[in-house]
């Protein structure tokens, strides 16, 4: 059934999802890579897209939400334009990563519960380990890895991004 009846594509938003679903043969077993591809496209997993994916794969929305919320890589809330990831693996932790996190959060007015700035410019997250332990402590700004950070240099990274944003 599921391979024959393609659910109606409501609005432009789902066109990309359609392509992704087709690429993975609409198999429920490929749910993880499907969600990864969807997130790549939308930068997070919007609720209506998850429901649509469930329908297309002929599985319950609960199953799709279950998987989407289980893995830390998946975000069900929109992320800011710039993603700041602070490594808090063991090596970074013993080399004082927490004061860097505190300093960056303070600069942006964020805390553990509020991870994205109201202007949607920054999201600050911690990750378990990036495997760049030799450079600990590490901060990643939009996939660019910065090693041997301090609270001051961490804040400077944020301010550099802010300055670039303002210049545009």
């Amino acid at each position, binding site marked *: 059934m599921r391979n024959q009846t393609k659910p109606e594509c409501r609005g432009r938003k789902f066109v990309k999802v359609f392509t992704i679903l087709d690429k993975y043969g609409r198999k429920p077993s490929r749910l*993880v890579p499907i969600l990864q591809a969807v997130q790549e496209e939308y930068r997070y997993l919007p609720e209506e897209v998850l429901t649509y994916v469930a329908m297309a794969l002929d599985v319950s929305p609960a199953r799709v939400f279950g998987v989407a919320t289980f893995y830390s890589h998946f975000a069900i809330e929109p992320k800011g334009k710039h993603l700041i990831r602070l490594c808090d693996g063991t090596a970074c932790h013993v080399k004082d990563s927490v004061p860097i996190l505190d300093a960056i959060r303070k600069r942006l007015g964020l805390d553990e519960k509020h991870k994205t700035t109201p202007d949607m410019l920054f999201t600050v997250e911690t990750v378990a380990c990036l495997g760049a332990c*030799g450079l600990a402590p590490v901060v990643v700004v939009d996939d660019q890895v910065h090693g041997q950070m301090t609270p001051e240099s961490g804040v400077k990274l944020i301010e550099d991004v802010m300055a670039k944003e303002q210049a545009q």
Partner: protein
Amino acid sequence: MNNPTLNIMDPAMGNGAKTLRRVIVCAGTGCVANGAYKVIEAFKSQIAAAGINITTEFKAEEHQHDLRLNKSGCQGFCQMGPLVTILPDGILYNKVRVEDVAEIVSQTLVGGKVLDRLLYVDPATKKHCNGINDIPFYQRQQRFVLKECGTIDPEDVHEYIHHGGYMAAKKAFLKMSPEQIVQEILKSGLRGRGGGGFPTGRKWEAARIQKNAKKYVICNADEGDPGAFMNRSVMEGNPHSVLEGLMIAARAIGADETLIYVRTEYPFAVARMKRAVEDAQKMGFLGDNVFGSGQKLNCEVMEGAGAFVCGEETAMIASIEGQRGMPRPKPPFPAQSGLWGKPTIINNVETLAHVVRIINQGADTFRKLGSTASPGTKTFALTGHVANTGLIEVPFGTTLREVVLNIGGGITDRHGKVKADGFKAVQIGGPSGGCLTKDHLDLPLDYDSLRSVGAMVGSGGLVAMNQKTCMVNIARFFMDFTQRESCGKCVLCREGTRQMLSMLDDIIEGRATGETLVLLEKLAIAVQKGSLCGLGKTAPNPVLSTLRYFRHEYDAHVFHKYCPTGQCKALAKPSIDATKCKGCTACAKKCPVGAISGERKKPHVIDQAKCIKCGACADTCKFEAVVGV
């Protein structure tokens, strides 16, 4: 070329053939973060500008060029990156910046001079080390799995083949029966490098004897242990060796489908493994007729989605099947009923890389290193408060002292200076492992001796810690990690780790009583017993091992409401050691709240009522007179 330095003869080639000069830039995650790709681009243009005939591709019969520039995978010495190796001179330049490239080209490549300022200086002897043969960090290692990481281009299958690559897989497919392969692995005594140390040959035999037309082999590259990057480095540096091992495993058990499950946090490893699979397909090593044997073999690379528990075999299978990564009870073992209910074996990246060597050189050669019960070598990621952080490979049975103090170059303080008496502990095995103390410095590192002291090899993460590290805080750090990563299936793991974490919070925030400690220990044992998979079974290990070896620190927190290192801010009591204070006034000037007072050249004091425990005084003091913060 008139330049004499460009015509060095390679004695190994003997026949007077001109050896290609090589410039190798490390492009592992660490070096790339420090600008390795920009350095490569600078070399490309500067070398060409100097009129040197340059190539960036490997070709075995190539003699028309004078110099080959290539990137390599992680060479392990990450904190000194970007690393630039020049062969056959054997020069290793470190911390190379784009600005240094012009000078390297004109002085070293053209002029034949070594630039001292870019060489590694041994902190112990202050001697400039020309290359890896002089640097103690490398000298004291025995590299097999990591041998080619750092010289070959990980994205060039031809170079891997030139170094004897795919010979073992070819032998396995064309000259050996599955039984012979399994026998050889059993004979080698190879034990799984992912953590448990289960004999690889036994796992393979269990899957081989299954009568099933469909079988799977999965490469576990979901290296979730925070503070460890052995598998990342092997995949980034020599991805084909992992793929070759995987092919041998598939041949041994009779599988025609293989899968590599890589952590998504490792973008370079993912890209290079994918590239390796594509290239192997193009070469006909994978596909419908592997090495002309008529056998079929496919391989797929899948990215994980950031769940630590997926490193557990059955959880990984669930994840591949598109489910939440939750483990299930064993038996049936995956070797009997795994992916899609078919016989499946799951091996770690490093285990597979060892397989290649065992098939090539034989089990006896493999057993020459290491101990009887733990043969061979093991890679460790050495991080934390050591002078040389990085990736190392040593035979099993090497002592902790050799690894941390000799290869690691000693323990550093918060300013990065080596301290002779700085050693406090080493955390081994990540969130499942335990702590080792000074008393264990002469303990040989192998599966069984580590288990006997309440730790484990784990995947090989070794985090060294100095005297300023609070062990209760470290236990809390790991508990916070396992609590978050618990999949939620078993009540004792889900709720127990949460309660353990809140007890540890009570301890470090000064709310705990003697009863808390009793309860913490009781609950730790309950979580161990009441959990299904390795995550829950081993989650209490960091707490139990710190309770065992650092009980006095817990006691100080609980009974004296004092954190001896001052790391736990609520219990920090900064004070100035009057015997060490010289009265330089530096701390008083730095204190943001004016809590420090005292006359010049006389010991200062901290007003506890004003102090905000920020630690600025301790950072400023040159005489280490500020204690407890």
